[in-house]
């Protein structure tokens, strides 16, 4: 082998390894949006535990600071990572996890919503760009979760309900931490987001429009935590 062929050989080897690495390293955390055990669809009629007949017209929320804990107590974390999950954009329900291993995951934690510091940091990019429609104008701060739809229980214009849940200042700091411990030993992350769990705690005839930070938003933020489950 002369020098030239040796170099070519190593280069080919290097790129192959690099490519293989790339393939191995990206796995996804999947968020499955559901109503009970069925995939959630917009404009489809559902009946909640409280006997509210309802249809959703929009559902978006932020997941931030994802952290995985493995059985051997090592961790994977993504500080300052923010993902806008939007039912209308199926790709957004897959969160890329870089450099994962095949180790069994013992704990998954993340926040629903955006932290205080990020909420006072001006114009940001990517999923945090205010063009995403998740930033309030008249009172600064991110909307952590938008849940909109119609229900005959709502005596409102066009029977509409709107929940824009947010608030970054105490005592109305609406970001919530979720910690899940998968029962099945698994090296992938499958998170179910069951909207029915939230609606089971709400009576749409009584509460159907929350669009400012405050005690009601805090209450719904608490309810929203119960949507997240792992298998």
């Amino acid at each position: 082998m002369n020098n030239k062929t040796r170099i070519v050989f190593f280069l080919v080897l290097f790129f192959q390894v690099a490519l293989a690495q790339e393939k191995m390293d990206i796995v996804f955390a999947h968020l499955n949006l559901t109503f009970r055990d069925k995939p959630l669809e917009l404009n489809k009629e559902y009946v909640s535990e409280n006997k509210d007949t309802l249809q959703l017209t929009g559902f978006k929320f932020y997941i931030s600071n994802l952290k995985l804990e493995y059985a051997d107590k090592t961790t994977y974390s993504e500080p300052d990572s923010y993902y806008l999950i939007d039912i209308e954009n199926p790709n957004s329900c897959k969160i890329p996890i870089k450099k994962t291993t095949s180790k069994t995951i013992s704990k998954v934690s993340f926040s629903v919503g955006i932290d205080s510091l990020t909420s006072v940091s001006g114009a940001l990019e990517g999923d945090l760009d205010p063009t995403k429609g998740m930033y309030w104008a008249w009172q600064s701060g991110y909307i952590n979760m938008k849940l909109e739809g119609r229900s005959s229980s709502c005596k409102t214009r066009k029977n509409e309900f709107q929940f824009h849940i947010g608030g970054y200042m105490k005592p109305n700091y609406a970001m919530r931490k979720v910690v899940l411990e998968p029962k099945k030993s698994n090296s992938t992350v499958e998170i179910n987001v069951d909207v029915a769990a939230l609606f089971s705690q709400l009576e749409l005839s009584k509460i159907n429009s929350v669009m400012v930070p405050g005690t009601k938003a805090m209450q719904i933020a608490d309810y929203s935590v119960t949507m997240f489950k792992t298998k």
Partner: protein
Amino acid sequence: MKIKLKHILLLGITISLAFAINKTTPLYLETPKAWPKPHYDFSKNPLTEEGFQLGRNLFYDPILSRDSTISCASCHLQSTGFTHVDHSLSHGIEGKIGTRNSMTLMNLAWSKSFMWDGGVNHLDVQPLNPITSPVEMGETLNHVVSKLQKTEKYPLLFEKAFGDPKITGQRLLKALSQFELQLVSSNSKYDKVMRKETTFTEQEQNGYKLFKTNCASCHNEPLFTSEKFENNGLAIDTTLNDIGRMKITNKQEDYLRFKVPTLRNVQFTFPYMHDGRFKTLTEVVKHYNSLGNNKRLPKQLAKPMKLSDNERVDLVAFLKTLTDTEFLFDKRFSFPKE
């Protein structure tokens, strides 16, 4: 062969370097002598001439509004301290009227909160208000971005400012901030007196003395605002029922509290107050002169001013020394002519 390879490599490196180096001209915002440090974090939005010029173009462009009739400058005119002269309440698209008097735009790098109720926590996100308000521009940021993408001019201006022609909400907002941050007014007669370049007249000097005893506890020098929210004794306008800061905080003590505005260039920023109810400075001074013994008022206003007619005239004479003509007519801040 060897030399050729070297050359190609060198050429490659040069080309990639040329692309990597963003040819922008940095700008620096100087803090005037004896002023506090600016509040704005410039490290997150480094000022450049190109960013400033982009922001200036956006500021004067009605494309930001739904029907392309209203620009930022519609309600923020340079010659009147970037506020809406002669309009107690400003009008937006389709002649719709808002509920508050437009604020002045100057020395914004030193501001911690924005709007009369302080609901906005950062200069970058302030423009979301006028852009999305149905009585102002009636637009969405997303739609403004897509309109700008379709123009010939803006992808070029964004490329100059940010290195590539991509238009995003973040870039648009940061560019607007770059323009607004440069709006520094620090060359009034008052400033020149403080720098010992000139002197007050006797009347102005007397007015300054009165100002320091009666007004300066809220309109703190040198920015002429405490940045706080106060109830200044105005009765609520029942056609508007504006509760002020309480709308943001939900706290009873913030009922009828509004941001203490700067008094720089106050001679030209009429009408005055959050709802523009006073047309002249004389009316403003008379209002404060008539206050007193109201438990809701802050301690600074607890005692009536009781100024004589002559003293009131002197106070107004001092307020006029806050006029900064260089700022009001600075061509760098005016409509960008091609």
